[in-house]
């Protein structure tokens, strides 16, 4: 290995460079000894972006852990959903919705599959969309969990405009 002669510009003293070897951690030594694959290059960095296979960048499959379970409407007398439940049914998340009947009893309204979404905030699967086909209303909704609260935005389309006009509402749920 070639060596450099370094001159101190103030004192005029000349020294010859020498290789400085940083102290190695004992565990690191052991780990390297265990590795059967010997590197042919001293470059231990991650491969550059263009050499990484596409699958390397892909996010993990969204795992809607935050969604799963029962959620209760913060407004108990809501005319929409009083309770909703997310179920994991064989790799398909389903949403089961409940409402109140005329006697104030909880009744199941419907159960539909939901689409799970990711976003750019590092969340994995705490956002969803679903579509309900009720007797008089088609409801398209999306929702998300934030700070422990499930928020849903519901876009309701009346099948018969004599019964009402399309309306939008937002409802809030807390985990049961």
């Amino acid at each position, binding site marked *: 290995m070639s060596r450099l002669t370094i001159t101190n510009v103030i004192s005029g003293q000349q020294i010859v460079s020498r290789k400085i070897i940083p102290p190695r951690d004992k565990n690191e030594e052991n780990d390297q000894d265990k590795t059967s694959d010997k590197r042919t290059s001293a470059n231990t960095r991650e491969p550059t972006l263009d050499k990484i296979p596409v699958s390397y960048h892909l996010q993990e499959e969204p795992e809607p852990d935050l969604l799963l379970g029962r959620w209760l409407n913060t407004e108990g007398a809501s*005319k929409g959903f009083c309770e909703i439940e997310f179920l994991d049914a064989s790799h398909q998340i389903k949403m089961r919705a409940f409402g*109140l009947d005329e006697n104030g009893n909880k009744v199941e309204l419907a159960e539909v599959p939901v689409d799970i979404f990711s976003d750019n905030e590092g969340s994995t699967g705490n956002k969803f969309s679903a579509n309900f086909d009720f007797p*008089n209303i088609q409801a*398209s909704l999306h929702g998300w969990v934030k700070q422990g609260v499930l928020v849903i935005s519901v876009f309701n389309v009346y099948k018969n405009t004599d019964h*009402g*006009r399309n*309306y939008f509402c937002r409802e809030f749920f807390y985990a049961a």
Partner: protein
Amino acid sequence: MNYSLYLSSEKQAAPTEKAPAQSETLSRPHGLALIGCWANTNKNSQEIRKFEIRESPRDNALLLTVHSAGDKGDKNWGETEITTLFEDDINKAGFDAFVAEYRFEHQQVRLQANMNLGLIIMTALHTYKGDGEQKNYFSREYFRRQSTI
């Protein structure tokens, strides 16, 4: 007693406070408050940067044009019709929520938006077609009115 509006049609046949029955044809324009140019309140957004809603001179439909961030400046998604308008059940001033959809070769984007306090809050639900490796994607952003796009 409040009961769910999603129950049987017999229950919903009666007009309710939140959704009064109105059989007459709605006066146009339905979504007047929505018409105009809207800019993302986050200037650094890498999603939808701005959009315009205008009334079609031909049939008074509302048309939406979205611009998103692209590799070479803004990317124009083209024009699509706003398929459905909605009232806010709190604000009865008019229709101030809408849904629209873009269908691209490899993905479908459903846009669901509502107005609140002078802002439009728009959620974009990106669903990818086929068995590709892209995951469904959700963005929710705020837009303020601006004079021109």
